[in-house]
């Protein structure tokens, strides 16, 4: 530790190394943040292409494009790529860039491990994607096709891709755990002297809590997939009734990981939105402390609601009632958050630059996803909703218009700080309006399909579902193509444009806005002296 700090100190006057080695050997939190973000953007398009294969096949009844097995590979890989390749790395990228700057630290606490956390991921994804890519060229049996949840016994029928998938999951888990340790160590040890915990920006708070979730559940996933591995190759029968095991036990273990996992993907989103809304409302975040407690409550509840993903497996009545009530409780802290955001806007002096538009869209559409989540919690009704397109609509509202919209909002919010240039506001607004319109055309009709009885994960459907599938597919292509605008905005903004000021936004508060734009390669080498005018949540408001 002391050696690392000394080293950092030695070369603080130099810029980054040049060429490709800069990126391979970097221990700089900003460089690593950029690597994460670029990788996530790439995977967003890879996973998006898979989604378009799915939606193209579902455009009309009948099979026109792909065999059912390949369709199943697409649904499986779309989820794995989007969750582990796009959303999670993107949030870690934001954490790398912003957390040290927000708490007044010179870098992440463990910079070399930070480098390693990132560089594991490309190897893991090579392994994960290889069977699918080889399969497309006619080599081997293709990628995993049992859904991202890898339920046995079906997942045990996977061909050669099986071991690839499991080792990739292991590597991604190691990367996530190292990233989480780093974030916790940074937040708890590296804050500037006057940056008390209850002065921290909400984004930092949400990431602190998320990091604990990651450390708690990633080993559980690793355990579950290792048991799959030994069932498949070493003759164990953890999940096979024939040998005294239980296939449902996998689902319990998986969702003990899986439910906190979905909050891992949404809590930092809450953090980003809680930064953006006060800035553009020019008004402090309403109920800062209750936001912190709400986040912690949601995190706690996430550990005790897992079986609501599996109400139809045939649980005892008492368990069903318990998991229903516990799940409904989540609506309370989540409601507090939404009410606080709306009250932050109330009587503000709002302006509607691109980040704010995305944040408002987030609040509305995430709330719709929350409503369908509440509906899904009601066990007897879930007997109808379960495994239909209603569920697909629900989790895409919380993950796409929730997590992804927050990521895009955050990108527009902080990109002037990253590049030193203002992004193209006009293009950004086009990107916003097209995305918001098409995403609803894409996902809202899926509620109708699910209620009308269309199961999820089917490559073909009866003709009564034709209309809304066609509309949904049109929305999918519109949404997918609109994202090319985002690439154009980012590309332009990296290359040049109007110079950004240090504060960038009139209403912005927080330490990251006290350093120049672009942020220098090394920031806060000496801890900043903090007064109430610099922090988003000054002491005189936090009680």
């Amino acid at each position, binding site marked *: 530790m002391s050696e690392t700090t000394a080293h950092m100190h030695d070369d603080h006057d130099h810029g980054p190394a040049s060429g490709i080695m800069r990126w391979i050997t970097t221990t700089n939190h900003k460089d690593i943040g950029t690597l994460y973000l670029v990788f996530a953007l790439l995977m967003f398009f890879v996973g998006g292409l898979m989604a378009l294969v799915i939606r193209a096949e579902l455009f009309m009844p009948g099979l026109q494009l792909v065999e059912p097995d390949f369709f199943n590979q697409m649904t499986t890989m779309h989820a794995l790529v989007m969750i582990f390749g796009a959303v999670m790395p993107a949030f870690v990228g934001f954490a790398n860039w912003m957390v040290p700057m927000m708490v007044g630290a010179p870098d992440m606490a463990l910079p070399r491990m930070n480098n390693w956390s990132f560089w594991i991921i490309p190897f893991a994804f090579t392994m994960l994607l290889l069977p699918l890519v080889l399969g497309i060229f006619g080599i081997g049996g293709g990628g995993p096709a049992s859904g991202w949840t890898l339920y046995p016994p079906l997942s045990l029928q996977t061909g050669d891709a099986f071991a690839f998938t499991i080792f990739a999951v292991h590597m991604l888990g190691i990367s996530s755990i190292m990233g989480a340790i780093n974030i916790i160590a940074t937040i708890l040890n590296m804050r500037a002297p006057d940056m008390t915990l209850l002065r921290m920006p909400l984004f930092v708070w949400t990431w602190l809590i998320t990091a604990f979730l990651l450390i708690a559940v990633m080993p559980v996933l690793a355990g579950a997939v290792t048991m799959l591995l030994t069932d498949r190759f070493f003759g164990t029968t953890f999940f096979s009734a024939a040998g005294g095991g239980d*296939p449902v036990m996998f689902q319990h273990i998986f969702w003990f990981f899986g439910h906190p996992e979905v909050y891992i993907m949404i809590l930092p989103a809450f953090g980003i939105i809680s930064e953006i809304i006060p800035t553009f409302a020019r008004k*402090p975040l309403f*109920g800062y402390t209750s936001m912190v407690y709400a986040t912690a409550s949601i995190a706690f509840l996430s550990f005790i609601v897992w079986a609501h993903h*599996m109400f139809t497996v045939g649980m005892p009545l008492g368990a069903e009632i318990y998991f229903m009530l516990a799940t409904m409780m989540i609506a309370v802290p989540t409601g507090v958050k939404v009410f606080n955001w709306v009250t932050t806007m109330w009587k503000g002096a709002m302006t509607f630059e691109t980040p704010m538009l995305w944040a408002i869209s987030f609040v509305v559409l995430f709330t719709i996803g929350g409503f369908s989540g509440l509906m899904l919690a009601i066990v007897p009704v879930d*007997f109808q909703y379960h*495994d239909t397109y209603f569920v697909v609509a629900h989790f895409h509202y919380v993950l796409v218009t929730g997590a992804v919209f927050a990521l895009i909002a955050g990108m527009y919010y902080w990109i002037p700080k990253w590049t030193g240039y203002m992004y193209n506001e006009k293009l950004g607004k086009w990107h916003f309006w097209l995305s918001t319109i098409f995403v609803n055309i894409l996902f809202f009709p899926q509620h109708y399909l699910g209620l009308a009885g269309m*199961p999820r994960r089917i490559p073909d459907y009866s003709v*009564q579902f034709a209309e809304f599938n066609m509309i949904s597919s049109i929305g999918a292509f519109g949404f997918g193509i609109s994202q090319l605008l985002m690439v154009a905005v980012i590309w332009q903004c990296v290359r040049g444009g109007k110079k950004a000021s240090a504060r960038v936004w009139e209403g912005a508060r927080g330490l990251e806005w006290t350093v120049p734009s672009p942020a220098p390669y090394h920031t806060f080498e000496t801890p900043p002296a903090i007064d109430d005018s610099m922090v988003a949540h000054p002491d005189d408001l936090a009680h």
Partner: protein
Amino acid sequence: MRKENTVIVAIAVVAAVIAVTWGILVAPRALAPVNMTQGVTQFSRDVYDLHMIILWICIVIGVLVFTAMFTAIFLHRKSRGHEAAQFSHSTKAEILWTIIPIAILVVMAYPATKTLITMETTGGADMTIKITGYQWKWKYEYLDSGIEFISTLDAASNEARQLKSGIDPASVPDYLLNVDNPVVVPTGTKIRFLITADDVIHAWWVPVLGWKRDAIPGFINEAWTIIDEPGTYRGQCAELCGKDHGFMPIVLIAKPKAEYDAWVAGQQQRMAQEAEQVQRIWSKAELMTKGEDVYNAQCATCHQPDGKGLAPAFPALAGSGIATGPLRQHIDIVLNGRDGTAMQGWGKLLNEQDIAAALTYTRNAWGNDTGDLVQPSTIAKIKNG
């Protein structure tokens, strides 16, 4: 003055929010069904009512929250010269919007729990049907009357659903929702279902009954229903179960008690006739004709109609070492399946004639000219040890 302004804007916004809500929830009905079925059982109607109650609660909360938000967005903007207030918390408000949601949840939890308790009370059934999920078909066993049969996707849908079949799905009646052997039940009778699977997890779902249940290998789940109205009701497997997950529908025909009894008598007669068929000697022509039908209905999904298979998972039968090799080994694989592959044991799925015919067909079709004839009685002898 400002206060009035806020009220007027809020009224306009609430009208707009309600109009949009109507537009997305009601207007699309013109195009196709958008809501859950009310079904044909008391349970399904209870579920529908619960669904509507919670939907309405969500709509009301949504309208209030979005009205507040869009009113602020309209009024409290810098371009209108609104000055930002600086308040940042209100303990009273925060307690209020914690307590009220809890109260709403309690109101919702009560009827939900009540409905759930009725659903989980499976005792007192008049008859029991055991349902077993297989990749990719359902087996039904009537434990009271001894009837059993396999139910698979009907031939017309199966032909149309092949990749680039060129057949318009709209021209196929009940495309993907039709089967060869529907499950027939009496109305007004408490029927208990025992649901399990033989290979991977499936889920048995007929929406008008109001529930679905996972079919899990090695475990038996219980569910029950009393159907009020006679009719033909359709459903599908709802748990991803492999490549043909989308192609294992369920057709449930509910008949008045008298008609149901007649159906039972007919089925029992059919089963008796089939038992006789096992003992007689079949000609090669008979076996080949029946074998082709059985093969195309059951085997061709994986091994393909031309016997060439689908590399790498599904091996070819034309010219294969097994289909042209020792007969006994071939019979064993067909009866018991092959571990670690998708080849399942057909001994418990098909009757002796079907298996004998399919074996004869595969050993003599596509140039596999072994000349072997497999008699149903041979299969029966091997099956019974």
